[in-house]
């Protein structure tokens, strides 16, 4: 075990860089970009932690991972111990270590970050989780005695999975229903292989299966079975709705029906879930990107994932078109930098007004208008306004629209006594995640709108403890305000 250094010495150690695949090579393959820290680098990084008495990092994490404690275990060389420490609060550390926006969460709050580079908490979390997985010694927590209560989880994204995990541990009989043919939600169909290898997600799900959770794919709740049927005919005592925010938004401009114009959801689903990039082994086609110009409209994580996927499908030119300026871009910094290194071009302060096609109905160009930033809007960001007379036409072969998602109404429309807000998201009490329907809870993106993996997992945990409460006491009280509105 390494000797702890005095704080003055610790802050002199530079933040350990994450090794990554060379940018030119990785821009053309789907292998993971970040390669992970070696043991020496991980312990060196752990050494930097100031082991603060009041660790702000923990407060910065939406699920309160005990960062200081697990980092101390890394320094002590007890990597498996560190893994179980993280697992006390976070069931998918290999995932969050890779995809959390740490700069706004744990690392954003890290005290060291005030004067120096913050501790690389995400990289350490990933290191520990990978070590645990590769060691083959994942310590599955002990399950409480069976309660005989049945819970149905609708949707297998991070919210559903973390809720299922907690409820299973508490001895309840848990079944997860998923509309698609694979488990994982956005982790599987949205976030690409080069950022989050699917084997990692699959292994976590295998662990959950081994714990005793039942997974049923190919069940669209609202179509195959309704929530009422689950409760009245199939004997479920409670239901957690975690169906995400999967409805794609379009721009509503002329020409959006043209061939070659995709929603990011469709494009990423074809690439990730259906593996269209491996066309010698998989049957789902994807519109030709090789040697062509592909542009993605939007500036979030989904846009970065789409444009970098297009690059890897062989695009001659891959661009981001964004209506605000680079500073306002909501995507994680790391993703923007990775994209830039891979050769993605950024056209900020431009907005599409029309897609133009040929006689076959295939996209051939896009008309763009230049934008300027005006007064701040409700979100505090400056509102983009079109500059009159500034339109240009740009040749384009494939356009991917990544301007956000909304609530899919399938479950809500078949569960009329479960209240929704005016955008169609489910209304749930903030603390208990109870909906207006007795026995039904909801959380994750379907309540909050599109957010993050860790917030969805946090909601899953909250729901699990609230469901456990309800199952034990049988008492159903909702916040009267929520019930009335």
């Amino acid at each position: 075990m390494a000797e702890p250094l005095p704080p003055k010495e610790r802050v002199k150690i530079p933040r350990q860089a994450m090794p990554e695949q060379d940018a030119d090579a990785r821009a053309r393959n789907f292998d993971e970009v970040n390669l992970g820290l070696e043991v020496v680098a991980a312990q060196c990084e752990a050494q930097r932690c100031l082991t603060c008495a009041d660790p702000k990092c923990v407060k910065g994490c939406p699920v309160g991972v005990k960062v200081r404690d697990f980092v101390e275990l890394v320094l002590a060389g007890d990597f498996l111990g560190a893994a179980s420490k993280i697992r006390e609060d976070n069931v998918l550390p290999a995932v969050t270590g890779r995809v959390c926006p740490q700069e706004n969460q744990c690392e954003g709050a890290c005290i060291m970050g005030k004067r120096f580079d913050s501790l690389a908490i995400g990289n350490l979390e990933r290191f520990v989780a990978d070590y645990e997985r590769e060691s083959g010694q994942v310590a599955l927590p002990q399950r409480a005695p069976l309660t005989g209560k049945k819970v149905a989880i609708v949707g297998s994204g991070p919210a559903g999975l973390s809720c299922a995990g907690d409820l299973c541990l508490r001895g309840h009989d848990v079944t997860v229903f998923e509309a698609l043919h694979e488990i994982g939600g956005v982790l599987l169909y949205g976030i690409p292989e080069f950022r989050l290898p699917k084997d990692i997600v699959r292994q976590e799900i295998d662990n959950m299966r081994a714990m005793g959770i039942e997974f049923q794919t190919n069940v669209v709740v609202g179509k195959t079975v309704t929530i009422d049927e689950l409760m009245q005919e199939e004997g479920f005592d409670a239901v957690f709705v975690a169906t995400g925010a999967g409805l794609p938004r379009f721009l509503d401009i002329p020409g959006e029906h043209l061939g070659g114009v995709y929603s990011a959801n469709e494009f990423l689903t074809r690439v990730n879930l259906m593996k269209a990039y491996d066309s010698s082994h998989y049957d789902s086609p994807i519109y030709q990107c090789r040697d062509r110009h592909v542009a993605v409209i939007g500036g979030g994580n989904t846009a970065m994932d789409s444009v970098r996927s297009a690059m890897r499908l062989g695009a001659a030119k891959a661009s981001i078109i964004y209506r605000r300026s680079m500073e306002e871009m909501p995507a994680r910094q790391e993703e923007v930098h990775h994209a830039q290194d891979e050769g993605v071009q950024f056209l900020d302060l431009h907005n599409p007004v029309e897609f133009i096609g040929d006689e076959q109905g295939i996209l051939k160009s896009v008309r763009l208008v230049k934008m300027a930033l005006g007064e701040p809007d409700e979100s505090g960001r400056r509102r983009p306004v079109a500059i009159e007379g500034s339109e240009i036409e740009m040749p384009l072969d494939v356009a991917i629209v990544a301007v956000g998602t909304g609530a899919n109404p399938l479950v809500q429309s078949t569960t009329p006594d479960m209240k929704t807000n005016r955008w169609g998201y489910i209304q749930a009490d903030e603390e208990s995640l109870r909906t207006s329907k007795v026995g039904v809870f909801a959380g994750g993106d379907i309540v909050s709108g599109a957010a993050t993996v860790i917030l969805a997992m946090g909601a899953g945990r909250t729901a699990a403890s609230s469901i456990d409460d309800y199952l034990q006491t049988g008492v159903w009280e909702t916040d009267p305000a929520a019930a009335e509105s």
Partner: protein
Amino acid sequence: MFPIVEARFLAPDVKLFRIQAPRIARKRRAGQFVIIRIDQHGERIPLTIADSDRDGNITIIVQGVGKTTRWLNTLESGDSIRDVVGPLGEPSEVESFGTVVVIGGGVGTAIAYPTAVAMKQAGNRVISIIGARDRERLILQDAMQQTSDELHVMTDDGSAGTQGFVTDALDQMIQSGVVVDRVLAIGPVPMMRAVSAVTKPRQIPTIVSLNPIMVDGTGMCGGCRVLVGGRARFACVDGPEFDAHEVDFDVLMKRNNLYRDQEAEALREFNKHPSES
């Protein structure tokens, strides 16, 4: 896994399957479909539920047109399909309309059949027109006969029924004074467009079942969007049935051609080793 309990050809390249899928069998209504994936390397394709029974089986009728449907048509009773999800889409709107003309072209007859049955049960007078290239390719003639008050059979070459198109029969029927309250037309896009052209000037409410390219079937990808009344609608959740007089058939036809090269390539590869897929 979804076991196949019966598989038999109805016509060259058209095969009927009964598949064990109890949840779907219990819920499905006329006009709805499933999405299937044959194995872990397969694509997801939509197929209409032609029927269901009390033993938890659903019936699908598949026309082999490309790789996936031809591969599917090599399966036999005892084999199974990896993924079957449904019932998807909105059920057909079935009421007592009066006289309903149900038109099926090619494998479209299989898609129209369950709605014809439902229309009959709802007390309508059902006149069916089914069409195919020739006698061999005509499907479900007996079943349609049983569920219809009147059946017209049309073939391109006259080898069965009357020589001509389904629209010829429809046009004649209307001209001879039959009062038609509603038309349901399902088949190749040009046929549906032609039917719509016959009924639009006469303002006969006409429903078509659209067949855009689908992936998830739950409203998540937007790939199945069709232009109806100038608005984008998702056929998998808002449809697949729409008001024919509002549909932009041109856009539908062009979007359906988007992957033609890759589809042709996949079929060529498949034909080299049809048994190994």
